[in-house]
């Protein structure tokens, strides 16, 4: 059976929040692992930082900043929805979170290249 009931803004916002949450949870252990090189293997860290200058990694960082930002702004929207008096315009808020995150990640990318 088809699932036409999901094609609307807030459901997509839910999906984005879930995917960004899972992706960030997967990223964090890798992040700490690389950071541990600073204590245990400084040469390896230098090598990694050199590799991190490549364009493909810069592009991945754009995605990472976007995920971080969209997860934080989306989370703030949900907390406002659940703890503050109800406001209409949830769709606008969710779309604004995506727009602001794209903008932030775009600035990050422009500064990096």
């Amino acid at each position: 059976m088809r699932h036409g009931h999901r094609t609307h803004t807030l459901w997509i916002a839910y999906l984005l929040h879930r995917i960004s949450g899972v992706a960030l949870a997967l990223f964090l252990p890798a992040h700490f692992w690389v950071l541990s090189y600073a204590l245990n293997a400084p040469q390896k860290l230098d090598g990694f930082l050199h590799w991190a200058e490549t364009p493909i990694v810069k592009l991945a960082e754009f995605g990472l900043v976007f995920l971080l930002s969209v997860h934080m702004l989306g989370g703030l929207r949900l907390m406002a929805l659940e703890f503050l008096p109800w406001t209409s315009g949830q769709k606008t808020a969710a779309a604004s979170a995506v727009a602001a995150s794209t903008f932030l990640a775009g600035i990050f990318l422009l500064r990096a290249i």
Partner: protein
Amino acid sequence: MPKEQQMSVSVWRGGATGAFQSFDVKMEDNQTVLDVVAWIQQYADPTLSYRYACRVGMCGSCAMMVNGVPRWTCRTHVNKVLKDGHMEIGPLRNLPVIKDLATDMDPFFDKWIAAEGLHHPTQTRDDPIETIDPANAARVEINAGIECINCSVCYAACDTVAGNPDYLGPAALQRAWSVYNDSKDANKQAILDAVSGVGGCHNCHSQGSCAVHCPNDLNPMNAIAGLKRETARNFFKRRT
């Protein structure tokens, strides 16, 4: 005379297991999805089972999945849902299928009771009728919720219900929110306890499918957010 226009309609046949059966139905200028189902039952296959009563969007008994979207079929014009001369009609999602397009609504209504969406009286029939100010903020909050026609469209649209069979669902929680805001209700603590349990309001992921698909433009997500606020407030109040 112009050639008769036909549409192809896939209709669910069977119970929990079954298959879609295709019917060719004559197109009319003014035709609802319920008209199509009735036509099939009257002229193509009298064994087709479905449920309806009022045909004017009052009773909430004719809801079905149309192209994967829950809708009140009596107020859904065929032109609105027909895609390339085809549509698919199935029984409401998240409810046990009795046969064909008829679902067992018991779990849906049992959850209204489980959510304490029932009146807890403060007075007896011998007391004078209490005056309620229609402009009172709590009464205004109730206004939207009481327009619910119990059609279960929100319940069928909700992915949280699909993922957690214990979840009370948008309609029952909205009912609980209406009763909670009623100044004539004597047991608001029972409501808060009922809606903050395992299947309670905190399961809601705020996907908002209930509000998008509600045929009466109600917003159960708003009501559930209200219950989340009140249960949180109640939690901290009890601790101090």
